């Protein structure tokens, strides 16, 4: 069970190597990696601000709920903060469970939460300047699926 923030680029594969080791009773590991999109030049960089301590604690609360709800054996969440270039991973979520349905659903649920409600403030730097981004209606609709 880990929730971490990082200012540095990271390799999602290295995280999966670590997470999938020594799991003789787990059966199923699902992961999701979100990558910053270039949007064909419309986005030059993404900037994410967090409130260190508060942000991990808030994400941890939802992850603990997901663990209980979906019967997870384990989870790992790593979220990038600071300036992020197109093509760089932004977020990595891994879930481990006995069966694949639980692992998939928990991973999907955690991503819906992270993309719409987690304590981040997002700025997009484009060719014409920067703007703060609010969550998309689509993200809130995604989250509603779990109510």
């Amino acid at each position, binding site marked *: 069970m880990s929730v971490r923030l990082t200012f540095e680029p990271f390799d999602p594969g290295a995280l999966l190597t670590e997470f999938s080791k020594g799991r003789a009773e787990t059966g199923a590991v699902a992961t999701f990696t*979100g990558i910053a999109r270039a949007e064909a030049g419309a986005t030059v960089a993404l900037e994410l601000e967090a409130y260190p*301590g*508060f942000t991990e604690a808030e994400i941890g609360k939802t992850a603990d709920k997901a663990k209980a709800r979906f019967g997870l054996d384990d989870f790992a969440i790593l979220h990038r903060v600071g300036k992020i270039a197109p093509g760089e991973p932004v977020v990595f979520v891994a879930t481990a469970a006995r069966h694949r349905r639980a692992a998939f659903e928990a991973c999907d649920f955690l991503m819906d939460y992270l993309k719409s409600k*987690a*304590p981040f*403030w997002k700025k997009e730097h484009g060719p014409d300047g920067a703007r703060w981004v609010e969550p998309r209606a689509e993200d809130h609709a995604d989250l509603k699926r779990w109510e």
Partner: protein
Amino acid sequence: MLLFGRLSDLAGWRDRQIDSPFLSVLRVKLAEEDESLGEALAGPGVQVALDQVIVRGDAPLNSATEVAFLPPMSGG
């Protein structure tokens, strides 16, 4: 006290030391100094955390309290 997201862009600062006995008094002080910031801090969806715990309404502060104004969270 800490400002996040568009609030720190608006204020032109991110982290300041301000002494005040109550959150309500702190709000008044900030609004007197910068009217548009005062309005933004009272705006819809802006939450306040004291020592990393979200609070509603007024609350006493001491010199060690970490006060953070959080605009609507965008997700990652």
